[in-house]
């Protein structure tokens, strides 16, 4: 099972290593969104930006994640990978976890860029590094799990690019809320119990992972 998961993840990561789309397009896009927030709020907004940096950060992550998920599935679709995976005899749960793992690793790299982004651009200060790192990890697992489930669901549709965000973003609403609260604490902005929210984030991740692994088989099988 673990070998199978790694096989699928390695394939997606190899595609990324050769194409570098996440690195040269998605990461710059995410930074661009941060810059846009700064520009939109104007020159007198330094204090506001710092205060709401967790919210802006996670909205940015969600937008970038949509791109990463779309990329992951459009590459597959273009080269007939879904059929190959079906024929490969890998268990659907392993395919699901493998694709989710590849997205998790890519999004984690993105988090490093974005944390640097809010520290430099929004003047955020990191008060609790451990909490910050764990929150990023837990949130990314939830996003990748839900994203992989919805990515394959929309992957064969001509309208994939417009439908995926509409379907996925409301589902990720609880992750957005919990991750923002955790960051509020980790960045020392609001006195909330970040560790409790981290638990909530972890719970979302587990629920989406389990549901996705169970439902993936249904979506992969030929009708």
């Amino acid at each position, binding site marked *: 099972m673990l070998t199978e998961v790694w096989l699928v993840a390695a394939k997606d990561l190899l595609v990324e290593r050769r194409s570098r789309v996440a690195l040269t397009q998605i990461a710059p896009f995410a930074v661009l969104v941060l810059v846009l927030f700064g520009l939109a709020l104007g020159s007198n907004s330094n204090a506001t930006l710092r205060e709401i940096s967790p919210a802006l950060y996670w909205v940015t992550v969600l937008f970038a994640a949509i791109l990463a998920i779309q990329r992951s599935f459009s590459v597959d679709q273009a080269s007939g990978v879904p059929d190959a995976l079906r024929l490969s005899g890998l268990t659907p749960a392993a395919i699901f976890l493998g694709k989710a793992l590849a997205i998790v690793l890519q999004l984690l790299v993105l988090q490093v860029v974005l944390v640097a982004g809010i520290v430099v651009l929004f003047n955020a200060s990191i008060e609790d590094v451990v909490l910050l790192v764990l929150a990023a990890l837990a949130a990314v697992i939830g996003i990748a799990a839900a994203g992989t489930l919805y990515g394959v669901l929309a992957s064969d*549709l001509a309208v994939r690019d417009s*439908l995926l965000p509409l*379907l996925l973003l*409301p589902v990720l*609403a609880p992750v957005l*809320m919990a991750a923002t609260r955790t960051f509020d604490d980790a960045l020392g902005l609001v006195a909330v119990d970040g560790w409790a929210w981290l638990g*909530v984030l972890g719970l979302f991740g587990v629920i989406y992972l389990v549901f996705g692994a169970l439902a993936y088989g*249904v979506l992969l099988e030929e*009708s």
Partner: protein
Amino acid sequence: MIPNSTASRFTRLFGTGLLVIIAFWLLFAFFWSDPDDTQGEVVRLFYVHVPSALGTYTAFIVCGLASAFYLWKKSEFADLLAHAAAEVGVVFCVLMLATGSIWGRPTWGTYWDWGDVRLVTSLVLLLLFVGYLALRAVPGDSGQRSKQASIVALVALLDIPLINRSVEWFENKTLHQKGTVLLGKIEDFNLFATFLGVVAMTGIMVWLMVHRFRIAWLRRQLLTTGLDQALLERRAEATGDVGGATAYNGFAPAIAAALAFQQTDIPGNWGYIFAGWGLSLTVLALYGLFLVREGRRLTQAVPPERRRWTTTPTDEGSR
């Protein structure tokens, strides 16, 4: 008897009975019940808001159960029921949010509050099911689409408790009264008006769902008989999208009227009350009319031998 519309003897009788109940509901809501001690006249919005909220949750739960049943047994009936329930649920959800906001303005002093658990949960619920309908609207292999839609519906229902808990922890406050009815705060006739509202709105929901189900069934028949494309082209040439356009044009004046009412400061907040009720009744009536018209159009397009939505042991579309 071969049906010529999505109406049947059952829906006609049921609909007539429903009109009587609606009449009594209106009488109780506006004439035979007294204003509330604390809320005043605005409590009359309660009689349409609470029933639409109950209707929303019932419809979405029906959708979720039908989706789960579809994944289990691949029953076409369950698949079409899930689709019908989701669409009716979205209409009710819009009404719940609209009447709630209109009610909130005079009672709480605001249309919206991001800290209120039920408001935010309901809004995300609406968006989740708008996505569901968008997915359903994408043409393609119906068996595959039904499976995808079922998963989306289940995830949506799974998400509801999560969002609900999150917002509650997030803010830990609600503008909603808790268990008003149980606390016995509401007096006899007010309680009865709410009860009638629940009966009437549940009836309306069932009536709409039956018609919507039959339309879904007829649409699938059209797809399988391959007539759909030809029909759509011919209709587009002749009149354009009649049903949809009329329905949506119809909503515009209702919304405008509702907004206009809110501007005027009628004593006793009657503006809000009429806006909420007017919007609800207009939307439901227009949606019902739209379903009936669409049903007529579709029944005429489907060959007589395939018109019976009551006999659906076909495995087409659910392979």
